[in-house]
């Protein structure tokens, strides 16, 4: 019987948004089983919200995720407006969609950069993070913040986007478009990235249905679900755009979906800016005086998939129950299917492929006491293995001459 090695990823690890522990059981190079442990960072936010007023809850939920910080307020606002039964002004709808789409662009750019880094393509990493800055600059201009924008409130948004600012936003978007095109080309046409990501970590549509996975993870497996289209909220029903899907279900398909989604997002923002110009400045809010007793089910399409908020009110000014489901909760469970049978050097990019946020600092698992037949590879080691594999592929392609040929083309 071959020796079985346990490789822990986590609890604190650069691959993950939240502290979670994945134990990869490996025989030789192959991953044969995977175990999860979570709960390291249970913050009790659902319980905290029961002691906050409806307006205060926004500030708590905005801090659930460090990257897609607007997706939770978005879903929560949708839930509350459902309870109150109100319609918000068109201008507020456009502003909400602009914020949501800008966030999708910066989150996807962040993912592309990290995926590049894990594969040993630090140029892609540097480029995409540099271009992401220009999106954060737009945020700073509109909201005053690079993150945690505090734009949402029940009945509308807190700040208007003055019409005088629109040309400047357009200019910044125009300069972003060629950069997205450049990145898309760099990823889609590279034979080494093809070799590293095609056929790796495949998720079939059956697996997606089984685990209820959402967002780009589902869309890359041919399941065309997107809350923006299926259950339109904000301005998504008022603009033209299409749901990007791919059929392969591998890491490459997930990258492709995210890259093309950024182009759609730019188009949505441009249409929303047109909409803003047609509406009256300052008309950004429907005043809500009372939240009646009831139940609200709000959802929003975050960069990683559907965010779901369930709120129950009793006529007072605080929720009696607030249930929150982030997309990673269902997407992470698919690792069991995507990792098993793959090699350790591919595990890094497979785990990264569902984009479980990366905002944690790089802290690793070396604190454990090592058990006799357990080998511990920390994050750097895993990334090193991944880089090695890329280098090997590059030298193979180089020797066969195919890389050169491709470059000449």
């Amino acid at each position: 019987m071959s020796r079985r090695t346990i490789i822990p990823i986590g609890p604190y690890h650069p691959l993950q948004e939240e502290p979670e522990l994945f134990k990869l059981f490996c025989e030789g190079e192959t991953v044969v089983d995977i175990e999860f442990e979570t709960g390291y960072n249970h913050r009790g936010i659902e319980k905290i919200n029961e002691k906050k007023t409806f307006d205060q809850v926004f500030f708590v939920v905005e801090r659930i995720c460090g990257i897609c910080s607007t997706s939770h307020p978005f879903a929560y606002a949708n839930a509350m407006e459902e309870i109150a039964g109100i319609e918000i002004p068109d201008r507020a709808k456009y502003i909400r969609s602009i914020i949501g789409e800008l966030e999708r662009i910066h989150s996807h750019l962040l993912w592309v950069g990290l995926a590049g880094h894990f594969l040993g393509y630090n140029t892609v990493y540097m480029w995409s993070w540099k271009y992401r800055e220009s999106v954060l600059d737009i945020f700073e201009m509109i909201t005053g913040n690079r993150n945690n924008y505090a734009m949402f409130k029940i009945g509308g948004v807190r700040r208007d986007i003055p019409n005088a600012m629109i040309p400047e936003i357009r200019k910044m978007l125009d300069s972003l478009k060629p950069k997205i095109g450049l990145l898309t080309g760099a990823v889609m046409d590279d034979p080494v990235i093809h070799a590293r990501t095609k056929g790796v970590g495949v998720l079939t549509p059956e697996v997606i249905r089984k685990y209820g996975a959402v967002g780009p993870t589902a869309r890359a497996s041919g399941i065309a679900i997107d809350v923006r289209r299926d259950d339109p909220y904000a301005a998504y029903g008022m603009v033209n755009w299409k749901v990007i899907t791919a059929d392969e279900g591998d890491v490459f398909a997930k990258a492709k979906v995210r890259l093309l989604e950024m182009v759609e997002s730019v188009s949505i923002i441009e249409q929303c800016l047109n909409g803003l110009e047609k509406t009256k400045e300052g008309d950004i809010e429907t005043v809500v005086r009372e939240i009646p007793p009831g139940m609200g089910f709000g959802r929003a399409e975050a960069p990683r998939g559907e965010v779901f908020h369930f709120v129950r009110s009793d006529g007072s000014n605080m929720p009696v129950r607030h249930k929150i489901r982030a997309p990673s909760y269902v997407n992470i469970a698919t690792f069991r299917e995507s990792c098993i049978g793959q090699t350790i050097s591919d595990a890094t990019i497979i785990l990264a492929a569902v984009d479980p946020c990366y905002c944690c600092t790089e802290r690793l698992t070396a604190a454990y006491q090592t058990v006799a037949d357990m080998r511990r590879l920390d994050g750097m080691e895993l990334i090193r293995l991944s880089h090695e594999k890329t280098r090997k592929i590059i030298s193979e392609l180089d020797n066969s001459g195919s890389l050169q040929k491709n470059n000449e083309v």
Partner: protein
Amino acid sequence: MIKQMEEIFRTEFSTDVLETTVLNHKRMVVKIRPAALLEIVNFLTEDRRYRFIIASGVSHPEHFEILYHLSDDTKGYILSIQVELPAEKPEIESLANLVPAANWIEREIHDLFGITFLNHPNMVPLIASGNWGPDEHPYATQGRRGIVAGSAAEGSSSGQKENSRLRNINKDL
């Protein structure tokens, strides 16, 4: 329209469905007998291709409640299947064998509320380990089950009224 779904529940599951509430043209809450849960969820996920979103546990002074949220992505509906479980013996059949997506949330609800899921394939703590003990359930408001001090006061109905009144005073401020 979601009214058609309401009609289906009334005719096909007349004995199992206790109450249907249509909240708006895309949202409905269906209260059912806990024993019929598997059959109804199977009907929705297999025959109607609903997607399991998540389940929400809710703690009341005298009972627990679970809402299983399911989504029809072709129409944008969210259906919530509601069950009520007695506080003294809260247990219900696990969905995880039928819908693997329910695996984690049932473990989470067990950790937080102390509700037992029968025949769950892997009932080990999801978020409790290292945070609180196996017999403590922080989201359960019933005094004897919860670990939060003062939750016993919320357990009585007069306590709840008082609580509700205070919340309204807070609003006026």
